[in-house]
């Protein structure tokens, strides 16, 4: 991804009000999560004598069933959820890129073996893959991140492999081989820059799904251990007192929804901004064939999109 390309994409992105709003929301949540230990009015384990108190000057969002300040819990929850999703997606991007490059660039038996494995994981529902991995490794945030990245890696491996295969056939790559460039140089200079744009879009889309999936794992008790908190585990605790204090469920649920919505909006905006200008306009979402991920519902494997659009 060259600088001028990135700049042009950024310029197109900021012309989309929805994407800008999404970016702003993600930014606010990001700062809130980053600064959670500093700006939280109370500590993570600090309890007061007021149980299930309503919003007050002391507790802006009230307190929960054991007297913990909801705002402080929320800020720490945002921090954990964002961090876990970020690590899971980054891990998946790195491992997926390596697998995809190996398969696409070297081809042959390596390709067949790696893609078999990738397809096996991909055929399994992502959240269930993560649950099984966490179940077998034991519940913790770290294992939840590992489980999620195992579920996401195939998406990136498939995407990168497809791009690598396409680039390998380009004349300038063949020329580079003739001139005597080694595989590392070709991958770094020619393959990766071509892979980067769709990879960034896919990573953004996956991030929204990662937030939901980490929330589900935490809700089921498969992620953070107390006293650590995440938005999902907060909601779980609130579920017990839904009869008298629905606020305890409303607050973290709203936070996950708004954050995921913002991430999805940014991903959509980025995808449209990266598409060639011919694909712009109201119909651009229809999957006019620009880029591998155009017109894709969030969380759908890229391979499926290709099948959806280009089915023989």
């Amino acid at each position, binding site marked *: 991804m060259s600088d001028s390309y990135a700049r042009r994409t950024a310029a197109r992105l900021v012309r989309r009000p929805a994407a800008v709003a999404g970016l702003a929301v993600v930014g606010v949540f990001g700062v809130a999560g980053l600064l959670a230990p500093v700006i939280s009015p109370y500590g993570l384990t600090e309890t007061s004598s007021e149980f299930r108190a309503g919003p007050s000057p002391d507790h802006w969002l009230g307190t929960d069933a054991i007297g913990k300040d909801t705002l402080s819990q929320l800020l720490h929850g945002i921090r954990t959820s964002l961090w876990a999703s970020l690590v899971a997606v980054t891990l998946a991007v790195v491992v997926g890129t390596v697998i995809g490059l190996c398969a696409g660039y070297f081809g042959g038996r390596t390709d067949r073996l790696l893609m078999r494995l990738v397809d096996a994981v991909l055929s399994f529902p992502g959240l269930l893959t993560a649950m099984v991995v966490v179940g077998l490794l034991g519940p913790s945030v770290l294992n939840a991140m590992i489980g999620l990245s195992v579920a996401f890696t195939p998406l990136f491996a498939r995407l990168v492999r497809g791009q690598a295969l396409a680039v390998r056939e380009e004349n300038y790559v063949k020329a580079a081989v003739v001139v005597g460039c080694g595989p590392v140089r070709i991958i770094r200079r020619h393959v990766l820059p071509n892979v980067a744009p769709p990879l960034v879009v896919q990573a953004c889309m996956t991030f929204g799904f990662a937030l*939901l999936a980490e929330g589900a794992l935490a*809700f089921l008790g498969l992620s953070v251990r107390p006293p650590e908190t995440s938005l999902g585990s907060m909601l779980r605790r609130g579920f017990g007192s839904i009869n008298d204090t629905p606020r305890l469920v409303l607050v973290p649920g709203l936070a996950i929804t708004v954050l*995921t919505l913002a991430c999805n909006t940014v991903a959509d905006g980025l995808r449209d901004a990266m598409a060639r200008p011919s694909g712009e306009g109201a119909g651009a979402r229809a999957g006019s064939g620009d880029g591998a991920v155009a017109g894709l*519902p969030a969380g*759908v494997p890229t391979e499926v999109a290709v099948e959806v659009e280009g089915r023989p």
Partner: protein
Amino acid sequence: MVRVAVGRLASAVPLILLITLGTFVLGQLMPGDQARAVAGPDARPEEVAQVRRDLRLDDPAPVRYVRWLTDAVQGDLGVSAATRRPVADELGRRWPVTASLGVAALTLSLAIGIPIGIAQGLRPGSWLDRALLALVSVGLAAPAFWLATLLVYLLAVERRWLPALGYVGFSESPVEWARHIFMPALTLAVVGGAEIARQLRASLVDVLRQDHIRAATARGLHPRVVIGKHALRNASLPVLTIVGLRIGQLLAGAVVVEEMFELHGLGSYALDAILNQDFAVVQGVVLVTAAVVVAVNLAVDLLYHWANPKARPA
């Protein structure tokens, strides 16, 4: 068609084998002692040793995998460590709950997604399209466990219209079944409906721009015929793929929803097994899920070939 089916099945078998093998390898990494898990926490060392001999856990891993596989083919999936009951029996007892949840959720998501997708796709860019798009985006972003709590609060706590927990079999009382299954199914149907609407909108917009639609309109056909007969049929093919994917996702969603509504289906069985590190059960649920996913993919493929003449082999 038959050739497609046979080809697909032939590639499905190694896929299922690979998935069970992967789970088995992961299971080897699982902390804790399987024999102790089966024997129970209070078991004396000699009892644990007895269990280890009975289950032949000291055999090398490849031998145990092959033995699990040969037993599985004969319908024996081992014994749950937590309940001491045969896994296959328990799966057989629980699958109707999850199946009826899945059918209800899928029906509801089609009922939500198809009208929204059509309304959006016919007039892209209109205020209705934008409003529904916002709704669909929220539907895609709202986590199931949150939707479920909201539904419980609104329909079971605030107004006591529906029971908050439990399950009644369809054959016992269809009305009670519907009352119990509605909230869990709706929870799962929101994401599904949003995905279906999104895909249907996209493909409808695409199809309506094509020449044969313009030609049909130019020939003076009634818009209802153009849309109903020419556009929707083509636009529904990608939706079919989404529906196929949804069925796999429903199994994952069932874990969350069954836990919340206390339905004793495959999802809650899987969750209990995962929390208890009950390896035989995890392996059994994985096998069933893989089989369902493969069967659904096969069905979607065959439907595709049936609905789309261009996909038929010459």
